[in-house]
């Protein structure tokens, strides 16, 4: 009925043997551990993960800056990298939202685009709705917070899946922070174009996260985490974020949580 809601209602593939991973440009260059952990987690569940070497960026930075022709050229080059009719798992809600929803507008002249967009799944969405992942928590007792990105929340509707996954961890207590659903102030080029507003927003977000006294906060978007961690580091605070793929893998393998 409501577009924002109906876009979350989708049919999920059953028992896929293979998936593509879209790593995102940010994970590729700054946070590859999260990408490797996502692959390992999927492989442990018996899924073959194909990582096309020709992938680069979803095109969102240019798209959100109004340079849609440039975004379109890059988006088109990405679509060609994922030819097989298998799910494409994206380790970011905001890149996922771009590829699942905005490609429909941007590449409306590409006949196969609907099929491509229907194959896009955000990582936690895929774990919950496709794999129906059951987790046995082998990690130590601890408290964490969860920061859901706005794109994951409002474009992909997958803020619930992150919660569902963390709720399966017997030894982990999820602490809610104030203004949990409020934006961290990243917004891509917004953080540079309107740096002072962004600074005010991230100052509040870090304040509310710090108030929970958790050992770490979890997120499924490295964009937000780059913003929040950058601010925490600048404030000389020790709190850091961890991508949910790495966190879940750590809990499953039972290695000491850092």
């Amino acid at each position, binding site marked *: 009925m409501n577009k924002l809601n109906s876009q979350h209602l989708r049919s999920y593939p059953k028992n896929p043997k293979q998936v593509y991973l879209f790593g995102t440009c940010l994970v590729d*260059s700054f946070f590859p551990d999260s990408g490797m952990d996502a692959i390992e987690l999927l492989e442990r569940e018996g899924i073959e993960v194909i990582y096309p070497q020709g992938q680069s960026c979803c095109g969102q930075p240019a798209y959100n800056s*109004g340079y849609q022709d*440039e975004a379109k050229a890059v988006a088109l080059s990405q679509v060609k990298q994922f030819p097989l009719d298998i799910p494409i798992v994206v380790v970011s809600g905001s890149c996922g939202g771009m590829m699942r929803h905005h490609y429909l507008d941007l590449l409306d002249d590409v006949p196969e685009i609907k099929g491509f967009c229907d194959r896009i799944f955000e990582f936690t969405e895929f774990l919950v709705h496709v794999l129906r992942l059951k987790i046995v928590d082998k990690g130590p007792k601890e408290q964490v917070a969860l920061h859901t990105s706005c794109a994951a929340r*409002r474009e992909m509707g997958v803020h619930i899946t992150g919660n569902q996954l963390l709720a399966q961890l017997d030894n982990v207590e999820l602490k809610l922070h104030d203004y949990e659903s409020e934006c961290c102030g990243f917004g891509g080029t*917004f953080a540079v174009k309107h*740096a002072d507003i962004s600074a005010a927003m991230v100052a509040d977000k870090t304040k509310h996260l710090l108030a929970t006294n958790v050992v770490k906060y979890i997120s499924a978007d490295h964009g937000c985490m780059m913003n929040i961690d950058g601010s925490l580091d600048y404030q000389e605070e020790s709190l850091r974020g961890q991508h949910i793929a790495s966190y879940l893998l750590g809990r499953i393998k039972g290695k000491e949580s850092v």
Partner: protein
Amino acid sequence: MSEDLTQVNSKESSDESKYAASARAFRDNVSRDLANDELRANFRGAMDYLMAKRKDAFSSQDELEMLRYQCKLIKQRCLAKLPYLLEELEQKLEQNGIKVHWAETITEANEIIAQLIAQKNGKSVVKGKSMVSEETALNDYLEQRDVECLESDMGEYIVQMANQHPSHIIMPAIHQNKQQVAKLFADNIDDFSYDTDVDVLIQQGRKVLRDKFCQADVGISGVNFAVAETGTLCLVENEGNGRMCTTVPDLHIAITGIEKVIEKLNDVPPLLSLLTRSATGQAISTYFNMITSARKKGEKDGPKEVHLVLLDNGRSQAFADEELRQTLQCIRCGACMNHCPVYTRIGGHAYGTVYPGPIGKMISPHMLGLEATSDLPSASTLCGACGEVCPVEIPIPRILLRLRKENVKPKNQQPQIMKGQGAGRSSVEAFIWQVWAFVHKSPTLYALSMWGLTRFRFFMPKKLGPWTSVRTAPKPAAMTLHERVKAQKAKQLQAAQKRRV
């Protein structure tokens, strides 16, 4: 009129709106207001309150979503027939004895109103709350012609006394706390001594206003819904001042934007229900006025004349584009600003426009042109909180994206959809994105650039412009994900071959 609506509004208003200058100063305004801790606390507190009130106003998410969907369809239907509905409205209003005036620009609107007042030798005006009259800066215009204008909505009254503009479309004085209002009253009202009791303050304001209602020659009000079917002007308010303005003085002039017309009387109940709940969390407002004529023969009260001024002021430019037209669905509830993390931080005045917040970012470029408002579309993280609460489901983030596109288009690219197209385009930024696209669409160039970024990561500067003024710079990894996946695959292949041997 109906033909005009499909044309891009090319007629410049004769004198540029004062808001164009303040919108141009957006960045300076933001710096000023972000540094004001009291102001920020006032906004945070007020927005928290309004968000909580709205949340409590709906029995369930399903009810809310059902109503939003219904109201979106109503507004879309009315916009689809806008030229015809405006003609029907004019015809029905005239039948009811309400005179209709058309104004393409704010100057035309002001001239019409000033003339109507002059014809009756009017000297004093009481105003109900009207954002459209803020749009035309009507008070300034009339005061220059020796007509005294008094705002009678409590918030507007405070703002006028403080010589400010509304910082919120529903709560004009929300940027002030009660201590500030108490001081303002003590400084400006004779025989009033400083008191921070809100009831005392309101009673004091009402006392002043009561006399003015009886003395004024003219009442000016806005309109929330103009019903074409019956020729009815609907006015939503809480203080009774709207009713006083529209019934006591002999002359009532209503002013509104052309997008406020709705088709049927039956469309009113769902829109009204959603408007009050989205705005203030009220099930219904204290007053709801339906004005269908002037005083009739034998009636004891009511104005002797009623006029309606219908203002375009850039709305037909938005109307002409199917996507941008959705901007006109807005019923001015203010929920988008209440939920906006940017508005909450910078407050309403920083925008420099009549309409602040997300709706202001969408509508102001049509009123003032992109040249004056080119910083507004980008001043959003596109977090989507506004679109999530908009009662008529305007896809606000998408419209902001569209405005960003129009803002950075080459200036002479056809078709010209908006006044001031390309105002935000810089050749440096355009070049950066061209290079960016060239690299990112080529797997080889992308791999090369990532190789460079990771291998020379120790040369990456510690200072990265505004990013590092409140953050440390992120550090590139030693190896890209591309490389690590490749290396792992090679290792796995090797191991598999070994096993076979």
